[in-house]
């Protein structure tokens, strides 16, 4: 196990991504709402750079109790990592694919100490 220093906390603005290449692995470090996440930058679909796309809230169809469609809405509590090659979406929280939970981005542990951000590889 290696621990890689990423940056000072304040060096990465909210919403930014840094791509780290270490020991042949590409890892995307994502800052979202002051939290840091780290996933392997490799989409389970065709191998795209999953972390280099946008993060967007999940979309849901709002359907009322009587089964009527009320419109599409964002679920702001469920942000997705979107692969820029084809749009495959993964939950930012745990890296599982939105359509098929058997697909999961490899997750790496992030720690913050003394204002520094580290990723364990």
């Amino acid at each position, binding site marked *: 196990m290696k621990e890689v220093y990423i940056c000072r906390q304040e060096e990465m603005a909210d919403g930014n991504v840094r791509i780290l290449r270490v020991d042949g692995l590409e890892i995307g470090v994502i800052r979202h709402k002051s939290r840091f996440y780290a996933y392997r930058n*490799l989409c389970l679909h065709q191998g795209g750079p999953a972390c280099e796309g946008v993060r*967007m809230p999940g979309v849901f169809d709002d359907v009322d109790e009587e089964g009527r469609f009320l419109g599409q809405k964002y679920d702001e509590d469920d942000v997705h990592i979107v692969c*820029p090659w084809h749009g495959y979406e993964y939950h930012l929280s745990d890296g599982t694919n939105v359509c098929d939970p058997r697909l999961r981005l490899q997750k790496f542990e992030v720690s913050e100490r003394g204002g520094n951000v580290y990723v364990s590889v």
Partner: protein
Amino acid sequence: MSIDMIDAATADFRDLATEGFDTGRHLAHATEQADARGYEDFLIVDIDSHHYENEASAEIAEFIENPIIRHEVKYQGISRKGITTGFGQYQELGGRITRYPLRKSEKVPPHPHRDITLMRRWMDAMGVDVACMFPTPLLNLGLAPRVDLEVELAFAYNRWLCETILQEEPRLKSMLYMPFNDPDACLKTVEQFGDKPGVIGFMVTSTRYRGVYDNVYARTYRALEERGLPIGFHTGLGGQEPGLSLCNRFLTLHALGFAWHNMLHLSNWVINGIPERFPKLKTLWIEAGLAWLPFLMQRLDNEYMMRPSDAPLLKQKPSDYIRQMYFTSQPMEMVDNKRALELTFDMINAETQLLYSSDYPHWDMDLPSTIYDLPFLSEQAKRNILGGNAQRVFNLEPVFSERKLRRRAEKAMRAAV
């Protein structure tokens, strides 16, 4: 557990906040795939890729002979697109596919033409040596109610493509746009452009309302057959179809529309005996994926056996004719269906009839690895589909990318040592 500390000075970092868009970087993983799989050892031909000719609208306008239409194209461009366009054309997924919004910011040198540079970049990244390029918004031109507009724009686009792009780069090819709403203009298109460098056939956009069996096309089909030039049908969304207009989501319209329009024309093509009337005319069906083919083969065979008087020119079953046609691979349906995919490959004689296509830069593009990594194909079958079949069908000179030639030379030097 030991912990090694690596600081920022020794790690390899990229900060996306400050990085501009670059096709080569966008496709860096594709390059890794190409290197890992040794694509330098064989030719890869991509038979369906695209550029955005609407970004060169002003240039193409200068090739339009009719001054009124030239002015209109200069004023309005080739396409307005956008979410407010009818028929659900929001394929950019709201900015999720980043190459759509970022493409225009990509830096290129002043020469050669921007489209040549961008094509070379993605081709080199993926390991593609030769690419057949098609337009993007012009794929809907067959629906324009003004036939004169289709003819004028088709000739202008074809001239622009030949003179500005194809004759400048031997790795780029095209099946040129045929203005199918004007049969005489189709024949003129073949006669005028059939011998131009880089022209490897002619293309009919499938979203239109002319029957492919109409006698008015006989002279064009014969002209293509005599020249050994394939005809390709490039499918599309077709959301104007009354039934398809019920698709309120792009996903359903794309899934159905792209299959439907080629199903329609292929069925008419076979049942009207076009393959018997023009036996040497090579026929290619483009961008409809593959899953529709087993369905159609079974369906047409079943009905043909009960209604031979509807198709008296046929000397074989419909599926036998289909097996002699050619198909591009993308968008290949491959989620949880390996057995179905293998059966589909078997049913269409994929080893000799299937031609790899990426459809890059569109949202549902396929890399060469979608073919190369299929477990049920032999190495020879992979190479056939990725390039050998296209080389044979289009009589292509094998032009390898400089990157591949460099890698080959390096490999040879290593082997010699």
